[in-house]
């Protein structure tokens, strides 16, 4: 017996209804993605010289993207794993939308590292000659396990819904029915299946939570393990992690608002969800401010020579514009908006969350570049400089386009709101959900 969900028609409505508008959107995104691929080919043939990187700025926008996309990926795990453990049942309608961000931004995070390599064709050397003292190996372990686990976690919770698609979407094209058939693994909506699935998901949630903390900490250790000023701090791990969860949660708000509007899911993705996310975001923004102050006060107060060069460069030097924009975008404006405008107002929430994500990208940039520009040898080498060049810009755009493309295509083939998790009644046991009508709809 299928789970009873009064919104099933509404949730399934967007699936497979590919419109001309969709093809246009997919076409544009695909073109952008292919442009980026072209830029990468160009870079592969010519060498990394066509980028703006140099000595001492050996890492540029690609590594910024790596950190940013891995951070964005924390959205899904946070919403579905951490909130699952915490027993926050309001999260149910948005779990899949959030996890899909994780799933589709991870490839571009991991890919950015490969794009950044001078010899991407030697990537397997990391396995053949892997040397575990290097933080890169820690990254390879953590990110590959995280990628695998989020695919599996996502897929597991998708199986019952695939089965619903299999049973209901009978006039879909043959290949698509076949796809549902295979992916559903012969799911029968048996109560025992649901009981076990819930158990597996609960267990995996604990594991995913540990993994999510590990992954972003390890990412930060690429920087923290060196002795360079501005990077060599124990705070860099927690700071990266908090930033990741902040930008991830903000991305969820943006995605939900778009899905709600485009796919007419107003009843399912009700305003109450946005209000809950707003509370979380206020907490994270304040946490981010705390980390920011803790880090910069410690550095500034002790005024060690090399550290101060980097700090001054951020506060009042070359990077001051980026630094203060970041502070405004991540902290200043969003907090004001959340506190005074965000309640029951999706438009303002989305605006604040877009600001947060622009700010978080800038934050990744401002952590990485100023340290490289002012290395320890600064007093003899002189200040470095860095300006991203065309291939870097094209590839960055391509990464974002790719993420949106995968997401958009996915929503046309699978239900983006979990049907069984939001069901009023699951086979075997009642599955009480908070009434969607509780919150005011706009």
């Amino acid at each position, binding site marked *: 017996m299928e789970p009873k969900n009064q919104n099933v028609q509404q949730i399934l409505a967007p699936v497979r209804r590919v419109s001309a508008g969709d093809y246009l959107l997919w076409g544009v995104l695909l073109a952008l993605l292919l442009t980026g691929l072209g830029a990468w080919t160009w870079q592969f043939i010519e060498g990394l010289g066509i980028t703006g990187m140099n*000595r001492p700025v050996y890492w540029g926008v690609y590594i910024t993207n790596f950190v940013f996309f891995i951070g964005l990926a924390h959205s899904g795990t946070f919403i579905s794993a951490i909130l699952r453990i915490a027993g926050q049942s309001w999260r149910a309608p948005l779990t899949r939308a959030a996890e899909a961000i994780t799933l589709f931004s991870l490839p571009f995070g991991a890919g950015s590292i490969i794009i950044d390599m001078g010899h991407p064709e*030697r990537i397997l*050397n990391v396995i053949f000659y892997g040397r575990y003292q290097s933080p890169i190996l820690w990254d390879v372990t953590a990110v590959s396990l995280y990628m695998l686990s989020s695919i599996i976690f996502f897929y597991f919770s998708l199986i019952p819904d695939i089965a619903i698609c299999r049973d209901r979407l009978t006039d879909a094209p043959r290949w698509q029915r076949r796809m549902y058939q295979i992916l559903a693994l012969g799911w029968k909506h048996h109560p025992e299946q649901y009981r076990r699935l819930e158990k597996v998901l609960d267990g995996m949630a604990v594991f995913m939570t540990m993994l999510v903390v590990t992954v972003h900490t390890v990412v930060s250790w690429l920087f923290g393990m060196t002795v*360079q000023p501005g990077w060599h701090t124990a705070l860099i791990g927690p700071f990266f992690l908090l930033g990741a969860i902040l930008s991830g949660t903000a991305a969820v708000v943006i995605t939900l608002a778009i899905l709600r509007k485009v796919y007419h899911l107003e009843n399912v993705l009700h305003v109450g969800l946005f209000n809950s996310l707003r509370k979380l975001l206020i907490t994270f923004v304040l946490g981010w401010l705390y980390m920011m102050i803790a880090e910069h006060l410690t550095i500034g107060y002790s005024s060690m020579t090399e550290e101060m060069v980097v700090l001054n460069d951020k506060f009042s030097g070359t990077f001051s514009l980026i630094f203060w924009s970041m502070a405004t975008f991540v902290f200043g404006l969003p907090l004001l908006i959340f506190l005074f405008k965000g309640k029951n107002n999706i438009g303002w929430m989305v605006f604040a969350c877009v600001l947060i994500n622009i700010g978080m990208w800038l934050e990744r940039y401002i952590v990485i570049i100023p340290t490289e520009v002012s290395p320890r040898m600064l007093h003899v080498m002189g200040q470095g400089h860095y300006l991203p060049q065309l291939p870097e810009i094209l590839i960055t755009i391509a990464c974002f386009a790719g993420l949106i493309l995968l997401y958009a295509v996915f929503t046309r083939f699978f239900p983006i709101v979990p049907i069984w998790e939001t069901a009023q009644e699951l086979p075997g046991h009642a599955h009480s959900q908070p009434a969607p009508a509780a919150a005011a709809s706009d």
Partner: protein
Amino acid sequence: MPRWGMVIDLDKCFACQSCTAACRMENNTPVAGKNQADMGRAILWNEVLPFIEGEYPNIHTTMLPRPCMHCDNPPCVKVCPVQATYKNEEGIVLVNYDRCIGCRMCTVACPYAVRYFNWYPPEWPEELKAHLNPEPEVQPRPKGVVEKCTFCFQRLRKAREEADAEGRPFNATDYTPACVQTCTGHARYFGDLDDPNSLVSKLAHSPRAFRMFEELGTQPKVYYLKQG
């Protein structure tokens, strides 16, 4: 087993750059050209860097020749994911160009900025191309890998081969990197730091001796003798 090290007397160095030039010819570092050099992409295994204190007219300049420090505790070796950079048993830090994946973690980790990346395939003007050093260790490096000063370790191999051919035991003084050999002011000394009677070892214990960024714990094997 010798532990190779270098001492540079800053009193004797007058920044003629002959070390830089000799290094280029010995090790086939490519010619970047003005545009690339302005972008900070010139590859100079040995550089002479000006360290300027004060402001005109009360100015004091120290010229600081900077080869690779060949640290005993090298931060670059620690972070290499594939052991493409490693410290050999005689303490020389080397790069395996066939294995390097070009991730540039080592370049970022090195506090002395001695590691260079090949942004483009190497190039030389025609006139120079005919005079590249034929030794196998210094064959031109492909694009996308990291390279750095090796203390001219091809010269170590040649010195050993010569000693063998002449049927005499190899002596630490047989091996001299190009920058040391060419130094106009005889400011550079090279030898076995573990031999208490060697000149480098004695100079390294001089009260004038210091190492760059000693507080980082990298334990460089290049010592400087303070000016003045």
